[in-house]
């Protein structure tokens, strides 16, 4: 049997809210920019997470980076779509904050172990053989075909996930350092022919390296290539 990925981590919205609340801050652009580094660090701890879930985290991370860039470069102009994305993220965190107390109350109730017990179906009856009219070899065969039809879809879906290689931030950080040593100096060159997902992770890796002052990066003007060097 293939194993379901039982997730031990929080959802990205819950995590973001937690980071903000830890610092007793309001949900503003500035404060979201403030917790971006912490969120990226959390992302780094997500090992063995399937790529579908990781992609959702990366979407949130890329919006945070947008907010962060805007905070660092006030002259940066965002497109309407980007503005929309940012306000959507803030909305979701605000909504989550409102319903979070319910989630805490529920957890408490679930763990209390104060339960009701019911009786099984026809508890005191002895089994009696009652076949039904629609019970025969054909209906059994039909049913089983139906189950495997649906089950096949689930397997295909989960295999698709398994086959997508996990793109690990650590690996991408190493890749950038190696490529710079090999003489590559532009981010454009680095991400040539890479998947969208890989580009996002490479960009995250770049920001990590910048933060830790391992590399230098320059951008002559908006939309120009980013020059990177040791």
């Amino acid at each position: 049997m293939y194993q379901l990925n039982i997730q031990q981590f929080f959802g990205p919205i819950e995590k973001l809210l937690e980071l903000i609340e830890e610092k007793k801050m309001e949900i503003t652009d500035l404060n979201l920019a403030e917790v971006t580094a912490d969120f990226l660090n959390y992302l780094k701890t997500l090992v063995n997470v399937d790529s579908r879930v990781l992609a959702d985290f990366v979407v949130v991370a890329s919006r945070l980076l947008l907010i962060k860039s805007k905070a660092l470069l006030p002259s940066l102009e965002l497109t309407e779509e980007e503005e929309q994305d940012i306000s959507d993220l803030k909305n979701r965190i605000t909504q989550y904050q409102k319903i979070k107390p319910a989630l805490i109350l529920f957890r408490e109730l679930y763990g209390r172990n104060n339960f009701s017990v019911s009786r099984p179906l026809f508890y005191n009856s002895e089994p009696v053989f009652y076949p039904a009219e629609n019970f025969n070899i054909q209906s059994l065969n039909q049913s089983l075909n139906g189950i495997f039809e649906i089950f096949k879809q689930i397997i295909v879906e989960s295999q698709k996930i398994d086959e997508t290689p996990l793109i690990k931030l650590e690996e991408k950080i190493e890749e950038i350092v190696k490529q710079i040593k090999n003489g590559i100096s532009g981010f454009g060159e680095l991400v040539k022919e890479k998947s969208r997902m890989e580009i996002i992770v490479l960009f995250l890796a770049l920001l990590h390296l910048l933060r830790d002052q391992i590399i230098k990066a320059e951008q002559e003007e908006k939309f120009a290539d980013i020059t990177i060097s040791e």
Partner: protein
Amino acid sequence: MENEKKFVNYTDIAAAIEALLFVYGEPLEVKKISKLLNIEEEKTEIALKELEERLKDDKRGLRLIFHSEKAQLATKPEFSGFLENFIKEEFKEDLTPATLETLSLIAYFSPISRAKIDYFRGVNSSFILRNLLIRGLIERASDIEGERGYLYQLSFDCLKHLGISKIEDLPEYQKFKKIFEST
């Protein structure tokens, strides 16, 4: 029907419903109870209310659980200390934080679609939903598939595990339902 019983009043009906639910054990639809007793649904509802009220008495060890137009007879949660042996296997294991997060969203805001759950959590929840369905903690709200897929709600077993007799008994249910509707 040969064994048909004539009912004189609601107290009579309530006694018959108690016997019926005791024998059946599982949740029984209000509609089905009416059919079995050969009375109007309205009368069944009134008799069920009467039975529910009567069971609230301290002298009684049982209570009625109501959920999605069905009723079930079960023990009062104050006696759970004597009934530890009867906890189902599926409820013994601890739930992960993400699973509890999903389950509580379903509890307060059911019936709720997967799209809505994903939106609130900011992450795909399909594996978690499958896990909750297999454990029997949630169920599909009905066999009608909505435009955006199935709707989910808590199961009777989950209500019993929580020790509540209907979904509205969740702490501050109305308040959070209102907040949710405004989002």
